[in-house]
């Protein structure tokens, strides 16, 4: 791993709105430069996307952008990021995605020119490669349309680019359901890392060519999925907490390849990435209740630079369209943080403390996001000589932190949960530090029809 030392090594400095390496955008947002902005996410209502409906699809996105920016303007917003996370058809047929970017960019430009409201589009194409099983991560023909959408989407006005890439997911899907931490380690710290290296080299190349911003990649299919499953009580929360930490070594590869942030929201590995690399990040919490329920509603905002709602359909609520309503909610959340920032260190610290105290001992997934624990875990995530070792050390530190919180009586966990702790520790301890040894250890245990080693450069 490229990073050997933390950029932020004191918990007090891990603060919302402030990142050591802020990202400046075309229309003048300075993300991480002392201000938190809203990042609005949205999607279509129930409908199909085809040549008959594409006009209506476009109208939806225009309406969403107009409604959101009009509301943001009315609320004296300091700036907005609109995340356009595409639906499959929009990546499969890049023209559809490109057109939507153009439409929204037009709206952004209008509000910028007419009213001085700065906004920027984050374009997040789909990782189509998972349509093939076993996945052909490097040789698939589906890579071409993905790259086309990145390239032409940036030309059309997408200034930040991200993806939720899926390298290793063919392994992690089952591993999550079986709570098999070794398989998760294999999926993320071996396959995931290797795929990220392959993919992000390309993405950064495309972005640099156009002077655009390669932002980051969130382990959605891993860490977010684990959280949703834990929230449904399908898998233990302690397991989900570990998955989050392990995903850091995978997601950080984007930065190693040249991504500069803001990291994407939904995997919640952002705080660790911020501590280690200094980039600004996006997070989501209570105001993403439209998209999924969460055990980390407040603590998620403790050190974020963008505040997101993950996704909401363009449907009508009593007040107006749902994305407009969520725009308002995000703006008010963000206002509180910005007022605190204006008040100086003490008021930020106090407000952050409220966010942290609010959730920290209610769930191990919240616990690991407390700035103090982020720093402690991040240190472990750097110590070793391989991604595998780093992920393992981070996960073990996480187990320590959970066990300490239980031992001190601050966190209560059910028997069902705590029963997993020794098993997880034992499994983690059984993992060697060397990648090749780890691969040798895992291969016999796995269903090798599910993934193709060559597609990961192995």
């Amino acid at each position, binding site marked *: 791993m490229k990073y050997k030392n933390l950029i932020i090594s004191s918990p007090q400095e891990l603060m919302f709105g402030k990142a050591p390496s802020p990202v400046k955008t075309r229309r003048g947002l300075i993300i991480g430069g002392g201000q938190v902005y809203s990042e609005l996410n949205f*999607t*279509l*209502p*129930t*409908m*199909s*996307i085809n040549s008959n409906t594409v006009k209506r699809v476009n109208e939806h996105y225009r309406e969403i952008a107009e409604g959101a920016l009009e509301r943001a303007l009315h609320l004296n917003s300091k700036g907005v990021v609109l995340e356009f996370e595409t*639906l*499959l*058809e929009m990546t499969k047929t890049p023209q559809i995605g490109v057109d939507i970017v153009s439409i929204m960019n037009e709206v952004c430009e209008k509000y910028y020119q007419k009213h001085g409201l700065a906004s920027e589009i984050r374009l997040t194409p789909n990782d189509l490669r*998972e*349509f093939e*099983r076993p996945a052909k991560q490097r040789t698939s023909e589906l890579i071409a349309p993905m790259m086309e959408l990145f390239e032409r989407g940036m030309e059309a006005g997408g200034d930040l680019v991200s993806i939720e890439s899926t390298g290793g997911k063919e392994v992690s*899907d089952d591993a*999550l*359901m*079986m*709570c098999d931490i070794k398989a998760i380690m294999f999926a993320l710290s071996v396959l995931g890392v290797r795929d990220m290296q392959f993919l992000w080299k390309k993405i950064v190349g495309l972005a640099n060519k156009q002077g655009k911003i390669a932002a980051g990649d969130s382990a959605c299919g891993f860490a977010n*999925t684990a959280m949703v*499953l834990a929230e449904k*009580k*399908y*898998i*233990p929360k302690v397991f989900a907490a570990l998955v989050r930490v392990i995903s850091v070594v995978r997601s950080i590869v984007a930065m190693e390849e040249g991504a500069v942030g803001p990291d994407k929201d939904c995997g919640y590995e952002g705080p660790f990435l911020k501590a280690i690399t200094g980039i600004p990040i996006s997070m989501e919490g209570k105001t993403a209740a439209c998209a999924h329920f969460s055990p980390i509603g407040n603590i998620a905002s403790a050190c974020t630079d963008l505040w997101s709602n993950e996704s909401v*359909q363009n449907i009508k609520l009593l007040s107006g369209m749902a994305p407009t309503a969520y725009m308002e909610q995000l703006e008010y959340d963000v206002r509180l943080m910005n007022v605190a920032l204006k008040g100086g260190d003490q008021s930020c610290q106090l407000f952050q403390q409220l966010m942290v105290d609010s959730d920290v001992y209610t769930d191990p997934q919240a616990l690991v996001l407390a700035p103090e624990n982020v720093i402690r875990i991040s240190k472990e995530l750097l110590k070793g000589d391989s991604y595998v070792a780093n992920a393992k050390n981070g996960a073990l530190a996480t187990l320590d932190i959970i066990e300490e919180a239980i031992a001190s009586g601050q966190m209560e966990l059910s028997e*069902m949960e705590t029963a997993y702790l020794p098993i997880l520790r034992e499994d983690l301890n059984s993992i060697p530090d060397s990648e090749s040894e780890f691969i040798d250890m895992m291969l016999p245990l796995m269903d090798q029809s599910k993934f193709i080693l060559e597609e990961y450069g192995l």
Partner: protein
Amino acid sequence: MSEILEKLFEAVEFGKADKASPFPPQLKGQDGANELTKNALDADVDPKDILEQALIPAMERVGKKFSEQKIFVPQMLMSAKAMGASMVQLKPFFASGKIKEKGTFIIGTVKGDLHDIGKNLVSMIVEGGGWKIVDLGVDVSEDKFLEKIDEYPNAVIGLSALLTTTMVNMEDIVKAIRTKKPDARVLIGGAPINDDFCQKIGADYYAADPQKAVEYLNKIAS
């Protein structure tokens, strides 16, 4: 219930597939579902009793514990595996027609959609309920469904979708099924689905979770 069926019940409930399996720790070294089933058959226990008095009720209890949030998915998966290990022994009796599944359940995630965690859970729990499962995987088109319906003409069909842009594909699939087999029962599910949508597209039933699906299927079977 005989002692051996009680033990088999226990093996399935706690997920002990066979003697070699290290899970669950408290049954380490003991016979698993595979061995116990063989022993039972050797002792001339009626395969029907094995199925109906041990396997299915054990999986019912597991399903109940799961829906009461007393166990996590891995435990349920282990039980499903244990049941599978028992089924290996029972296979000849299914083949000969001596015992029968409650019916066949064809399930798939609709075209364009790759979400399958929910679908897989449903398969597993329905299988535990005594149904034969034909899992078509993800991104499944009308044609694939129709093909399998040809193969299993009395099957109940289950459709899963997680995306608001793919749930509408259910409508096409239901229509195609109706054209071919008007009396086939279609059950739908997935996070964005609800009753209204089910009615709108003319499916037979919407189940919010696997338990509801099993209840519905059992009503049909009886």
